[in-house]
C-alpha cells in the first residue's frame, strides 16, 4: 500500500462534502479509527432478522465492523447480542454460523455462558485434589461476555456498543422509520442467503448504494427495460442528520421523449432490446404507495432494498482497507402465496453478484480502488452533482445522498 500522508494528518479538503479525499479508502490508520469511532461508536448496526432466530437458544453469527458477534434469543424469548469472544482467552465462542444452544461453551477450556452472556461454568474451577484451579476470589460476574445493546423494529435486529446511541427511532427520524415499518410490516420468511466479496473499501460500496446518479447509466439493463430512469417519478430523501437515505422511483410514470434517454443519446438506453421471456419481469404492486424501486440505507453499513418484488437486506462488513464482504438476505413474507414466492425468486435474478442490474457494482467499486493508487498527494473525488446541497429532493440527478453519508462519517470520525 502507498504510504501517503493520511487524511487524519492532512485534514478534509476545504471544499467540504463535495470532495472526498481518496486517502479514506486505503489507509490502515483510517480503517482502525473507523472500528473504534464508527462501528464501536454511536451507531446502530444491523445484526439480523428475528425470524432467523425464532426459538429460545437459536443463534446466528454476524459482525459489527470487524468484531465477531453472536445474536441469540434467550430463554424468555428476548433478543440478545454479545461479542463472540470467550472472556477467558479470547477464542471464538461459537464457530458455526447458526444453531441452537442451551449454553454457549467454549471448546478451548469449557468456560460456559448462559443465553444472557453470564459466565456460568469454569472447567476445573476448584482444581483437582485441592491443587490448582481459579483463585477463591475470582468473580465470575465480572467475566461475562461483552454485551451489545440491542433494539428491534419490525423484526429487524440492530446493535450498538455505545450507551450514547439514541433510540433507533430518534436515530433514524420519522421518515426513515416509516420506511422500515413499510417494508417490515408483517412476519418475514428468508428466501436466500449469500455473500459477495468485494475487493475494495467498504465505503465505496456505501457511496455506490446511495448514488442514484449511476443507477440507470452503469446498469444498462435498468434503463433499457424501463425498471428505473431519472424521468420517472421518485425522490432522493435524507433524514435531518443526513446520515441515512432513501432513493425510490415509481415505474411507469415517465415519458422519455425529449430526454437524454431518447434516440440513443445515452449509452445506457438500448431501447431496441426485448426479452425472450418477459415473465422475468413479472410483478405485482407490493405496496399501495406505487413505489416500485426503493433503496434505503441505515448509517453506517446496511441497505434495505425493494426492487419491485425482490426484497432484501445487504449488510456490509469491512474486512480491511481494501476488502469488504456484502452479506445478502433475500426475503418475502410468511403469508406469501406460491405465485408471489415464484415472482420474488425470479426477480432475484436482478440483484446480487450475478444480478442483471447490480453485477457491475462489484466491478466498478474495484475500478475506483485500483484507480486511486499511485496518488501524488491528497487528491479527492468530486461529489458535486446538485451543488453542495444536503437535502431531500424529488430530483434524483443529485449526489446529495452521497454527501449525506460523508456528513455522518465526518461527524463520527472527527475528520
Amino acid at each position, binding site marked *: 500500500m502507498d504510504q501517503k500522508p493520511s487524511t487524519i494528518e492532512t485534514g478534509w479538503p476545504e471544499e467540504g462534502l463535495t470532495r472526498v479525499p481518496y486517502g479514506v479508502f486505503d489507509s490502515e490508520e483510517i480503517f482502525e479509527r473507523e472500528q473504534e469511532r464508527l462501528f464501536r461508536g454511536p451507531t446502530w448496526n444491523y445484526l439480523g432478522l428475528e425470524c432467523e432466530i425464532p426459538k429460545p437458544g437459536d443463534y446466528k453469527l454476524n459482525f459489527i465492523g470487524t468484531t465477531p458477534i453472536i445474536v441469540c434469543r434467550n430463554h424468555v424469548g428476548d433478543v440478545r447480542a454479545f461479542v463472540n469472544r470467550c472472556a477467558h482467552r479470547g477464542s471464538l465462542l461459537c464457530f458455526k454460523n447458526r444453531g441452537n444452544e442451551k449454553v454457549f461453551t467454549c471448546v478451548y477450556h469449557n468456560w460456559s455462558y448462559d443465553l444472557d452472556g453470564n459466565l456460568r461454568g469454569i472447567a476445573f474451577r476448584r482444581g483437582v485434589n485441592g491443587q490448582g484451579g481459579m483463585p477463591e476470589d475470582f468473580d465470575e460476574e465480572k467475566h461475562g461476555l461483552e454485551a451489545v445493546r440491542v433494539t428491534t423494529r419490525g423484526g429487524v435486529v440492530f446493535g450498538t456498543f455505545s450507551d450514547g446511541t439514541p433510540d433507533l427511532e430518534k436515530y433514524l427520524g420519522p421518515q426513515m422509520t416509516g420506511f422500515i415499518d413499510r417494508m417490515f410490516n408483517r412476519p418475514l420468511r428468508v428466501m436466500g442467503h449469500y455473500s459477495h466479496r468485494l475487493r475494495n473499501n467498504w465505503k465505496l460500496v456505501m457511496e455506490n448504494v446511495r448514488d442514484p446518479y449511476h443507477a440507470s447509466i452503469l446498469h444498462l439493463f435498468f434503463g433499457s427495460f424501463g425498471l428505473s430512469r431519472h424521468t420517472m417519478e421518485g425522490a432522493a430523501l435524507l433524514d435531518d442528520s443526513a446520515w441515512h437515505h432513501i432513493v425510490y422511483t415509481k415505474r411507469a410514470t415517465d415519458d422519455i421523449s425529449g430526454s437524454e434517454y431518447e434516440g440513443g443519446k445515452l449509452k445506457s438506453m438500448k431501447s431496441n*432490446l426485448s*426479452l425472450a*421471456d418477459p415473465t422475468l419481469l413479472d410483478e405485482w404492486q407490493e405496496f399501495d404507495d406505487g413505489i416500485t424501486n426503493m433503496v434505503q440505507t441505515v448509517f453506517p453499513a446496511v441497505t434495505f432494498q425493494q426492487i419491485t418484488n425482490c426484497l432484501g437486506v445487504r449488510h456490509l462488513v469491512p474486512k480491511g482497507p481494501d476488502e469488504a464482504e456484502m452479506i445478502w438476505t*433475500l426475503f418475502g413474507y410468511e403469508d406469501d402465496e406460491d405465485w408471489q*414466492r415464484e415472482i420474488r425468486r425470479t426477480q*432475484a435474478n436482478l440483484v446480487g453478484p450475478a444480478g*442483471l442490474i447490480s*453485477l457491475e457494482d462489484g*466491478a466498478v467499486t474495484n475500478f475506483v480502488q485500483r484507480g486511486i493508487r499511485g496518488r501524488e498527494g491528497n487528491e479527492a473525488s468530486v461529489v458535486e452533482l446538485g451543488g453542495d446541497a444536503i437535502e431531500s429532493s424529488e430530483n434524483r440527478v443529485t449526489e446529495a445522498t452521497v454527501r449525506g453519508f460523508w456528513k455522518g462519517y465526518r461527524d463520527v470520525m472527527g475528520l
Partner: protein
Amino acid sequence: MDTFDTRHQVEQLQIDYAYCIDSGHFEDWPEFFTDECVYQIISRDSYEQGHESGFYYCRSKNMLRDRVLALRETTIYEPQRYRHIIGGTRILESDEKRCRAESNLIVVRTLQAGEMGIFAAGAYLDTITFESGTPKFIEKVVVTDSPQIDMLLAGPL
C-alpha cells in the same frame, strides 16, 4: 440403453456444455436445455435449507437466452475466462427416456491481467432427457460449496 451408454452420453453432454461456456459461445448455451427447463445457481447452504433464491434462476430456455442477451448487451465487466473441470459423475437413476446424475465441478476463473484462481467448486444436479435424440438438460442445479462470490458472477457455470 445400458448403464455404460447412459454414462457415456451424460459425460459427453457435460464435456460439450463446458466447452460451450469456456470458449465463450454463450449463444449456444441455451441449446443444451429443453424449452421447458430449470437452471439455477445456488449455494449449498441455501440449497440445504430449502431456500428458493440463489445467484441465477431461469425457468425456461427463453430466460437462458435473456441471460445471454444481458451478457452481450447490458452487462459491463472486465474480460475474463472460465475453465470448467467436471468429473466424478454418478448416475442416480436412469431409464430409456431420462436420467438423473450428479457431477463434481471446479471452475477456474482467469482475469485479463493473469490472476487466476478457483472461482467455484460444487456439484451439478442434473436431470437429462434422451427423448429428442440429443441429450438435453431438463433441470440443472449448480450447487456451489461456498456461499460467496468473488466480485461478480457474469457468465453461467
